């Protein structure tokens, strides 16, 4: 298996033996359960669908319940597909644990970033701010957004104020500091997107790239 679903629990620091402090994010990774196996014959592509975190059966709607009931599984809150080359090696109902990773591995972590709401150009795109004093009236404005009669319009992709955050963000190549299979915990060096208790996907880096 090349990935697992988890939940961000928060950050702390751990000390190395040589005394250096390592900032880590604690992720509750798994246990996940295989909920569906997709093959070229059945779906046109190869993937394994994993489910994470049990939920009350009542809170799931009927079609969602049915997806699990087909294999007599309890419903899971989060479903994600992982592309694998050999999906037939996996069976529905099989458990996937953090032991797919080990200390020293490098992983990619994907999650939804925190929503920042409607933000100006300074915070959203890192524009520089104008002078606050000396008669300056341009403080946090975007400045010119284009030319004149040609092109007589604003180019697509112009960086302007707007909704910031709450988008899918991947942080690549994070070091795995600790793997605790018993407690289903994964300690990853550095920060990861999203808030505490948010779902995250931890994956082995895609080597095809």
């Amino acid at each position, binding site marked *: 298996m090349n990935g697992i679903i988890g939940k961000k629990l928060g950050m702390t*620091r751990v000390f190395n033996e040589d005394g250096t402090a390592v900032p880590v994010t604690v992720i509750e990774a798994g246990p996940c359960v295989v909920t569906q196996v997709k093959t070229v014959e059945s779906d046109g592509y190869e993937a394994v669908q994993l489910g994470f975190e049990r939920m009350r059966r009542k809170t799931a709607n009927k079609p969602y319940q049915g997806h699990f009931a087909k294999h007599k599984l309890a419903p899971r809150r989060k479903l994600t597909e992982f592309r694998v080359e050999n999906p037939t090696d996996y069976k529905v109902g099989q458990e996937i644990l953090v032991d797919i990773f080990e200390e020293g591995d490098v992983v990619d972590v994907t999650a939804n970033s925190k929503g920042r709401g409607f933000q100006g150009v300074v915070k959203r795109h890192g524009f520089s701010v104008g002078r606050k004093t000396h008669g300056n009236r341009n403080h946090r404005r975007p400045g010119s957004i284009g030319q004149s009669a040609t092109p007589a319009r604003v180019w697509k992709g112009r960086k302007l104020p707007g909704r910031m955050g709450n988008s899918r963000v991947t942080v690549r190549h994070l070091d795995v500091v600790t793997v605790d299979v018993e407690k289903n915990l994964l300690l990853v060096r550095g920060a990861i997107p999203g808030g505490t208790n948010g779902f995250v996907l931890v994956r082995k880096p895609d080597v095809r790239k």
Partner: protein
Amino acid sequence: MNEKVREIELLSERTDAPEFAIGDTIRVDVRIREGGKERTQAFEGTVLARRGSGVNETFIMRRVSQGIGVERIFPLRSPNVQKIRVTRRGKARRAKLFYLRKRTGKSAKTKARGIS
């Protein structure tokens, strides 16, 4: 804080360190690595401040060495801080004793408290 994060932090908790307060004079054995070799160096001085909590707790120590004031900040839970011993209890009426930096001689010392 999440309960499971707290458990991880408890792993690095110091159980060997004595209670020490601001104003105390303490001696710290610091592990130093230089040129691939490891040795222990002692640093003795007055505790000026403690800040942070849990894994993030640090303390500031000050001593006057050969007429020059030397201050060092140690993370309380760093494994490089091998041993802490209290050599003298001092009385402090402030939480941060930064005023000692401007003092010299007798007034740069904290008054003794209790039996050391």
